[in-house]
């Protein structure tokens, strides 16, 4: 680790923790798979209906899956005393939590983006539709993760803060969901041009990537005092 900067070392460590046993890297994909597999059974053999709502189902599954493990993102460091040392370092806390959220996105959300086109087959989506969904997931899941980071910081001291985190974060995630599905459907059906909702989706992600770490750092400093 000597060749990495402290922030890069933190990113690498968090990714290592996620992919080791019990780390939760693939829980998101498994949950995503479960949701998408069960929907066709629930809706019955109406292929046209599946194709129409397929992008919404994929987005919904990805949104819920991306929240998995977010409550442990900061809580596990709080519980074993690592957060104290992270707070005491010269590296700004905002960058440290941003690096942790990036590690979470890479290990939990990026596999969802890769899995979406494969799961689109189960929902009777053609290649172009699945590709559109995957692209919008790629653009929108950073917003989900970095908004979730704020919830994780607010619930850091709670042992089972997952439910409260979801309650706090879901209202803020709804615009991302709306524009994500709108962009996917625009690519498949029209009449809206794809660029409009996709641009807003990208803007939401860019805003979250900046605001999330700052808000999370403030929440952490207040909460640990």
């Amino acid at each position, binding site marked *: 680790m000597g060749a990495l900067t402290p922030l890069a070392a933190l990113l690498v460590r968090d990714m290592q*923790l996620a992919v080791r046993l019990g780390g939760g890297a693939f829980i998101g994909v498994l949950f995503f798979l479960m949701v998408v597999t069960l929907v066709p059974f629930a809706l019955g053999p109406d292929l046209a209906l599946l194709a129409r709502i397929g992008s919404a189902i994929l987005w919904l599954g990805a949104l819920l899956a991306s929240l998995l493990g977010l409550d442990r993102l900061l809580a596990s460091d709080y519980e074993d005393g690592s957060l*104290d040392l992270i707070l005491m370092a010269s590296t700004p806390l905002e960058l440290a939590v941003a690096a942790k959220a990036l590690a979470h996105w890479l290990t939990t959300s990026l596999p969802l983006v890769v899995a979406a086109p494969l799961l689109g087959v189960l929902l009777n989506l053609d290649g172009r539709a699945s590709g559109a969904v995957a692209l919008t997931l790629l653009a929108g899941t950073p917003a989900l993760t970095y908004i979730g980071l704020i919830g994780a910081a607010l619930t850091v001291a709670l042992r089972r803060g997952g439910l409260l985190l979801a309650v706090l974060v879901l209202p803020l995630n709804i615009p991302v969901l709306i524009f994500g599905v709108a962009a996917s459907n625009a690519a498949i059906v029209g009449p809206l041009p794809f660029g409009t909702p996709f641009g807003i989706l990208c803007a939401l992600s860019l805003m979250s990537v900046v605001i999330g770490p700052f808000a999370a750092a403030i929440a952490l400093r207040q909460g640990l005092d």
Partner: protein
Amino acid sequence: MLAVTGPNGAGKSSLLRLVAGLIHPAQGRVVIAGGDPELSIGEQAHYVGHQDAIKPSLTVTENLAFWSRWLGDGNKVAAALAGVGLGALAHLPALHLSAGQRRRLSLARLLAAQRPIWLLDEPGSVLDAAGGAMLAAIMRVHLAAGGLILAAIHGPLELEATRELRLGGTP
């Protein structure tokens, strides 16, 4: 070196966390004479509290290598492990360590990155006799090199504490 003593609940841990900058005082402030004026006390201090900051799914070396890089320049990992007597366990996943070994690993941070101030909260509490001697030895080396130690201890430490601050339970 300053040893902070007192009964349970007297506020020894809170005092250390205050100096480290992890808690903000309701009144007053903590100032440091000397050192780097650009850095806060926490940035120039090691804090070894009751918790170990060890991730069970990483190996002993991976745990220490991360803290060594986070707190310093990441170079002295093997020497630090040898210094606390964990050299033979370098590749063991940390979840297999005993309580005393975990304590040694968290103390290895002190050797893995150079910082002038050490804030130690009952550092010898789960260590065996050999561990206690090891701890006293590394503390002596640190003090001889001009370092500062603020330690909360219960029983006697095998070290000539320069000063003692006794926190009382009731006046």
